[in-house]
């Protein structure tokens, strides 16, 4: 215990010191309030009004006085130079019948007793008392109920009623009335100025003036970091359900790539590019002050895999976009400093809406949208006639012959033809098809003319509806916001469906002047269907990804021959062969599906307590529970289940991998182990997350020049993730769900050291302490210092690796506050910022102590199996966090009252202690280690230019252009990658390249005799056989970064009277893309080919004009042996294109109904919006031929972002 205490004392010495200093500062006496704004007045016999005017201009303080009383006081001569405000006032009022006091930034003049004012002389002595009655409204003229109305300096006060009306008895003319209500700015008026109605401005503009970091809300003037705020109203993409996608192109330096568009999958988001070589590089999402933990870890690379897990990849998929007020993207080390060792990848802070006091306001938002079907026009796939002619060439080349095709694993038209020829009906003496050229021609003609439109068959012009209702209401002491929404997507493909329900209740209470309380309860439920999908597997030998039984409708349509037909001549489903079993995509999508369910519940509360004069103590607590389920339902009628039963010929029996060879009977034939039923694979993921934070804030202004604030706190996080899976075999979907399990399929699983059920748990424990100090001199010079100390259990049991201190220093100079800027009226604000600091993130390694895992042996005989414990990783006593020093300089300029805003940032980052793969001598027992030794550098520029360029009463135009540039380079990495890992579309990792660089195998040319492509192989010499597992990666060509170097967007909003039009473009450039892999050594009669195959090398000599390889003859194929030159071709430099594009992302046309008309309808507001999303690419590389430059066509559950049209209706009551 004692040792622990000492350890604590040591580790926290600095924190403790700072606390002591703060306490000391707060205990200091402050001698009188002085306002030291320098005032200079030189006036000869001027009026008091003009003197006050002058003081007002120089100090920014307002005066409140009775006009009558001040009028006519003139003949004042004052000569003041650079004196304090207080001093100036003292002199000015020395001989005047007024005294004064400060009310915030207002100076209130009151008659001085015994110094009768002129007006009083003329009027009777008795002060007039009267009853004040008025209506309090907001800017829109709507009444504010329950607003407090009080008389300054007295205990007299009342509240407005439901109509916003108040009555105050017995007020004197000299009284000053204060109006206050939560959500509104306080208004102070003398009685004389209180008319029939009093307008209180809402605190909406507050968001403009402050930065919300999730820990603090800081005045933007005092903020020293790089952060960009966007309001939901400005960026909302109606009909798009995942809010993270709305950030695309909106914030300079934030890159959003829609690698898949399926609901629930996250886009690949990077703030200022990647910071880690092996880590996830995902920004931290923070909702209302609490980090949104991921339910399952899906790395950025995994996002593009199309695996079922990716459907749970988006942290924000459960958030109703209508609940969001704004996003704040924290980019540099200073902005993210309070996130310390989790901040390296940037932070996106979401602020949700709060209730406002006043009459209950109900908003309805309805979206009705449709996705457009993709079409063959966009893609470059052969029609069925052309495809058939290629098949005939294949036949000539010895491919589609009778004997091999009729027992092939997969088969299309030709396989069907040979099957029919094989059928002999003994009673009629007829063959299924006569084996004559005429009969065959007639048979093939039907399919040559089929021209099946798979897109049309597999996709819908779907109907998506979203309804959201919110109610905001409250009094001064309690405000509530309630919302609920329903989203239903009937599915772009025939296999997809998604429904989501959300609810959110947020309440804020002012228990007293000192104590505030807030609560949030939010929940969302999702129910989604997707095509059944397995996890994909890398085949590093051939160089391809494989996914068994992939039925992704998009990749099916792109990769399946248009000669195949979905229906036969009688209108029945027509089956072809896949995995030795009958296959029809329509049947399969119906019988092989993935059902995803998510339940997400969050409870959150916070208490704020103000004590002493300048202190505020806050406690924030949050609990979140997420439960998800993924069921793959493969019925007994599916091709997948039937593939387990395919044993219709001896060649199938020996080749079908889904049959089982019992090692106890090595000479027995492989047998069927799924005789009945289908497969039911259930995976449940669950997360329990607690979070608690205690903070103490202190603020004080000294001499009106020194603004000092300090913030100290502690937080703790707890998250436990759990995965529970069950692989069911023989489940009979059509027989009451009764399982019929052959024990041998379980035996087979066990023999492959696999299990049919399991439960995995992950424990995430985190604690942190932080302190922040901010000092501003005269609002001009700001300095900020943050120190944070993070502790986590994620690196393992060692106590040394567990803790990490981080710090940031930053400063800002508000040039517009300088004296010399006083007369520069064009400039609203001008600020220079600078930051230097250390941020960090957790690497992927967890071996600060040696890792042992339970497992089992791999032995052919079940009787010889033993459970074992594997030494997974040696201890790495040097393990630490991944770190980065970042320097940032920025400038913010506002011109011409908001007409033009400009912001620019330059940063330079030095990443070190990054986790990289390291090959050791092997003597310690681990040849490849993950260790903190790699370095990378990156730098970038961010520019934002925008503003309300035209602001006439009828016509308004505003624009916003963002530009983000980020370039990174790995400067130290001693990994030994193999060729295959470098050339895949998601990129490889190598010293000297980008964090994800695209590498290519150098294409040499086509062999003049065979048309087989050849390359520079790993031996350094040309050849057809590149060993994809070779670690000789020097031969590869570096194409460039996979991630775009430049990203941005350009938004234009036009308003004309009631109409608004928004046109938004997004763009990226500087990256390379690998084209979809179409080339193979062998093609079957189900393969679809792109039209570029027309240009393939056919005859000797063609290779001088084309780089597209020939279709191999069967004989040539067999001679290749274990070489895969055609797969290699997909990874050659010839299959790489530029990734730049400009996309017309959204066009939105809106109409807001005229107020009078709306009132006549009995509602408060009504507007319509027509929204087009993902419309088209204005520019992209021609060679993409329809391939979406953002999308990775990985199969599984991945779908590109569809073109979408939405009608949106907003109704306010």
């Amino acid at each position, binding site marked *: 215990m004692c040792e622990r205490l000492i350890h604590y004392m040591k*580790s926290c010495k600095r924190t403790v010191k700072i606390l002591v200093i703060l306490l000391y500062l707060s205990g200091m006496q402050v001698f009188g309030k002085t306002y030291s704004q320098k005032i200079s007045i030189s006036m000869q016999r001027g009026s008091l009004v003009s003197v006050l005017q002058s003081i007002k201009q120089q100090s920014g303080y307002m005066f409140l006085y009775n006009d009558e009383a001040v009028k006519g006081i003139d003949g004042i001569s004052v000569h003041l130079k650079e004196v304090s405000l207080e001093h100036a006032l003292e002199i000015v009022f020395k001989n005047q019948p007024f005294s004064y006091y400060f009310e915030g930034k207002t100076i209130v003049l009151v008659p001085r007793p015994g110094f009768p004012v002129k007006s009083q002389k003329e009027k009777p002595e008795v002060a007039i008392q009267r009853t004040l009655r008025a209506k309090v409204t907001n800017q829109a003229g709507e009444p504010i109920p329950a607003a407090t109305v009080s008389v300054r300096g007295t205990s007299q006060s009342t509240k407005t009623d439901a109509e916003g009306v108040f009555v105050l008895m017995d007020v004197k003319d000299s009284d000053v009335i204060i109006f206050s209500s939560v959500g509104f700015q306080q208004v102070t008026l003398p009685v004389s100025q209180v008319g029939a109605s009093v307008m209180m401005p809402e605190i909406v503009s507050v968001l403009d003036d402050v930065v919300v970091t999730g820990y603090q809300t800081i005045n933007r003037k005092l903020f020293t970091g790089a952060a960009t705020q966007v309001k939901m109203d400005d960026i909302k993409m109606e009909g798009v359900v995942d809010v993270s996608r709305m950030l695309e192109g909106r914030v300079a330096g934030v890159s959003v790539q829609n690698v898949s568009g399926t609901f629930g999958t996250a886009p690949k988001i990077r703030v200022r590019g990647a910071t880690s070589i092996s880590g996830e590089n995902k920004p931290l999402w923070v909702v209302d002050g609490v980090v949104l933990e991921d339910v399952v870890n899906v790395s950025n690379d995994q996002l593009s895999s199309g695996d079922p897990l990716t459907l749970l990849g988006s942290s924000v998929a459960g958030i109703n976009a209508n609940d969001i007020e704004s996003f704040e993207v924290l980019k540099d080390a200073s902005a993210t400093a309070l996130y310390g060792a989790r901040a390296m990848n940037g932070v996106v802070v979401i602020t949700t809406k709060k209730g406002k006091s006043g009459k209950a306001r109900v908003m309805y938002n309805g979206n009705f949208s449709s996705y457009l079907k993709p079409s063959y026009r966009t893609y470059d796939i052969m029609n069925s006639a052309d495809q058939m002619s290629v098949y005939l060439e294949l036949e000539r080349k010895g491919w589609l012959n009778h004997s091999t095709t009729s027992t092939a694993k997969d088969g299309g038209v030709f396989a069907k033809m040979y099957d029919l020829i094989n059928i002999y009906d003994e009673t009629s003496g007829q063959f299924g098809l006569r084996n004559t050229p005429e009969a065959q021609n007639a048979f093939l003609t039907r399919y040559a003319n089929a021209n099946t439109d798979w897109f049309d068959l597999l996709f819908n012009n779907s109907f998506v509806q979203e309804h959201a209702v919110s109610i905001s209401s409250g009094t001064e002491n309690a405000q509530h916001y309630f919302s609920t929404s329903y989203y239903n997507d009937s599915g772009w493909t025939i296999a997809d469906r998604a429904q989501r329900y959300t609810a959110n209740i947020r309440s804020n209470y002012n228990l007293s002047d000192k104590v505030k309380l807030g609560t949030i309860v939010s929940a969302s439920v999702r129910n989604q269907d997707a095509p059944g999908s397995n996890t994909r597997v890398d085949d590093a030998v051939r160089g391809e990804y494989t996914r068994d039984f992939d039925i992704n409708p998009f990749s099916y349509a792109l990769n399946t021959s248009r000669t195949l037909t979905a229906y036969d001549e009688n209108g029945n489903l027509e089956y072809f062969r896949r995995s030795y079993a009958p296959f029809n995509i329509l049947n399969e999508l119906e019988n092989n599906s993935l059902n995803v369910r998510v339940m997400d519940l969050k409870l959150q509360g916070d208490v704020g307590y103000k004590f002493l004069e300048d202190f505020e103590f806050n406690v924030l607590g949050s609990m979140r529970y997420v439960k998800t389920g993924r069921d793959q339902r493969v019925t007994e009628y599916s091709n997948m289940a039937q593939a387990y039963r395919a044993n219709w010929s001896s060649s199938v029996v020996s080749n079908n991998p889904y049959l089982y060879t019992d090692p106890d009977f090595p000479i027995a034939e492989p047998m069927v182990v799924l005789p009945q039923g289908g497969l039911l694979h259930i995976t449940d993921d669950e997360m329990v997350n607690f979070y608690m934070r205690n903070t103490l804030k202190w603020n004080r202004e000294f001499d009106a020049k020194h603004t000092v604030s300090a913030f100290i706190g502690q937080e703790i996080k707890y998250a436990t993730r759990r995965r529970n899976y069950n692989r069911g075999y023989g489940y009979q979907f059509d027989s009451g769900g009764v399982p019929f399990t052959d024990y041998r399929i379980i035996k087979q699983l066990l023999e492959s050291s696999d299990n049919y059920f399991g439960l995995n748990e992950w424990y995430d424990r985190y604690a942190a302490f932080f302190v922040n100090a901010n000092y501003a001199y005269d609002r001009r010079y700001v300095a900020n210092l943050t120190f944070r100390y993070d502790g986590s259990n994620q690196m393992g049991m060692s106590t040394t690796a567990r803790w990490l201190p981080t710090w940031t220093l930053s400063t800002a100079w508000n040039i517009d506050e300088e004296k010399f800027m006083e007369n520069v009226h064009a400039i609203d604000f001008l600020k220079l910022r600078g930051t230097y600091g250390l941020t960090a993130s957790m690497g992927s390694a967890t071996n600060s102590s040696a890792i042992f895992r339970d497992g089992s042996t791999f*032995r052919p005989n079940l009787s010889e199996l033993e459970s074992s414990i594997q030494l997974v990783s040696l201890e790495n006593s040097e393990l630490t966090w991944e770190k980065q020093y970042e320097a940032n300089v920025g400038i913010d300029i506002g011109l011409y009252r908001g007409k033009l805003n400009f912001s620019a940032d330059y940063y330079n980052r030095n990443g070190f202690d990054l986790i990289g793969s390291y090959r050791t001598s092997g003597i310690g027992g681990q040849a490849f280690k993950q260790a903190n030794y790699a370095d990378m550098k990156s730098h970038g520029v961010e520019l934002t230019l925008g503003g309300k360029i035209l602001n006439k009463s009828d016509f308004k135009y505003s624009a916003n252009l963002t530009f983000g540039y980020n370039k990174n380079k790995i400067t130290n990495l001693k990994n030994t990658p193999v060729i295959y890992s470098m050339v895949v579309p998601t990129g490889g990792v190598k010293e000297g390249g980008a964090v994800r660089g695209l590498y290519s195998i150098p294409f040499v040319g086509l062999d003049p005799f065979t048309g087989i492509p050849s390359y520079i192989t790993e031996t350094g010499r040309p050849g057809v056989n590149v060993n994809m597992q070779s670690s000789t990666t020097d031969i590869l060509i570096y194409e460039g970064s996979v991630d775009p170097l430049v990203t941005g967007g350009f938004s234009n909003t036009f308003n004309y009277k009631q109409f608004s039009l928004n046109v938004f473009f997004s763009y990226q450039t500087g990256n390379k893309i690998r084209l979809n892999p179409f080339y193979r050594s062998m093609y079957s009669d189900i393969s679809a080919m792109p039209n570029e195959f027309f240009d393939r090398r056919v005859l000797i000599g063609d290779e001088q004009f084309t780089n597209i390889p020939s279709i191999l003859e069967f004989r040539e194929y067999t001679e290749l042996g274990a070489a895969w030159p055609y797969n290699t071709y997909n990874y050659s430099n010839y299959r790489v294109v530029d990734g730049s594009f400009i996309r017309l992302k959204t066009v939105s046309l809106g109409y807001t109904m005229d107020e009078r008309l709306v009132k006549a309808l009995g509602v408060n507001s009504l507007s319509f919006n027509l929204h087009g999303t993902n419309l088209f690419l204005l520019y992209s590389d021609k060679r993409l031929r329809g391939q979406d430059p953002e999308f990775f066509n990985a199969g599984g559950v991945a779908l590109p972002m569809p073109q979408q049209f939405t009608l949106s209706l907003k109704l306010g009551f």
Partner: protein
Amino acid sequence: MKKMNNHTILLLVACSAFALLGCKKYLEQAPDQRTQINTPEKVGKLLVTAYPSGNYMMFAEAMTDNVTDNYVEGRTDAINTDSYFWRDVRSISRDSPTSYWNDAYKAIAVANHALRAIEEMGAGSDYLPWKGEALLARAYAHFMLVNLFSRSYDKNTADGDLGVPYVTQPETVVEQSYSRHSVEYVYEQIEKDLKEGLPLLKDDVYSVAPFHFTRKAAHAFATRFYLFWQKPEKAIEHANSVFPDGNIVGKMRPWTGRYRNLSYNELAVEYTKATEPANLLLIETQSWWGSRWRDYRYSTSVGQRNQIFGLSGERNITGGTLAYITGQVGLTSYYVRKFTYFFARIGGSSGTTGYGYTVIPALTTEEVLFNRAEAYIMLERYDDALNDINTFIRQRVMDYNPATHDLTLDKAKAYYAVSQDNEALIKAILDLKRPEFIHEGMRWFDILRHRLPVVHMDIEGRSYTLTANDLRKTLQLPQEALNDPGIQPNPR
């Protein structure tokens, strides 16, 4: 669930109050379901992986005279090719020397972790059998390494020959520096572990004993160790401990009996089964050898088969017909089907890619018999040696007739046309071992120990010779190991 939540909330509250003090405890939670080695059972489970999961047979076999260039058949493989021409193998894939190096040292690391855990737990009597196994496993892996990567033991130079690092502590830093010491030092260390570990072993703690160092296996290993170290008395002593009842025949492979009726596939399963009494130590390796041993380009050919097995007019020392079942791939490659392989699919039962596993017989009854015979020869106890050799012959020759098939000193000297008794008998033993241990890499160790030359031919008819004291007989260390300043390369 409920219980845990309460617990958690309590923890959170406690943490807030006691800040760091509570948090230290709080952060001690492991991040996942990793195991702590804290009971005798867990030490035992850990030691299941204390045996090298690499397989030396592929590259060792390719370097011997058991193989030749079967250019018509067979797959071209860089490891197979480089080994055949005694070049440094660059590939680090499965079945390469580097992969064996890494896996053997990994086994050593596992043993060292087990030993550390035992020490931390107080090394009570429950732990002692496991301590024995850990010491034996550590000794075995070092022994294999020193024989492959150092010059084969030579009394006269062992003090100066470069050994291999003898690792006795778990590594805790990213890159630790090691030194090679001498071959003599490594042998001494092995003996130390062997002597300390052997008395602690207890056969009944194992669930599948033939995959562990039982007493028998340990004695068998000791026999090999002392024979290689040229201490014949000790080799004999340990060999006798393997057969305390003298019943050797009942524990040998029944080639002339039960094996005769097996199909190729059945033989493959039977040969490396735990129930086969001849298998004194089986090791599970991650290796493709079990599926590919017969179809590499450089493999055993018709000519090789005839020479090794004494077929098609070639002679063998017994004069009889050997009982081995041989098979054929294509026109030229011949093999004995000794291995099955196990395919562990990635991604569950529907996947088609994965890893191959091969169980190999690391120590067998037959080897102990041969080792004892060789030890007798070294002590010039020729009758005892002949007795062992003939015990073997009786089990391997069809229609065994002692009068015609048994070996005598005269018969051996005449057969090899040599005058020295010991030379004749050694040659006989080496010749008998070749068919018995074909595909198992054993021949390579015999070539090393007896300084035999090897001649390889290529397709063009060029011949390549590995001389008796060829430096290439010692495998070069992996490049990464040579980056360690404390590690010198083997001379070339």
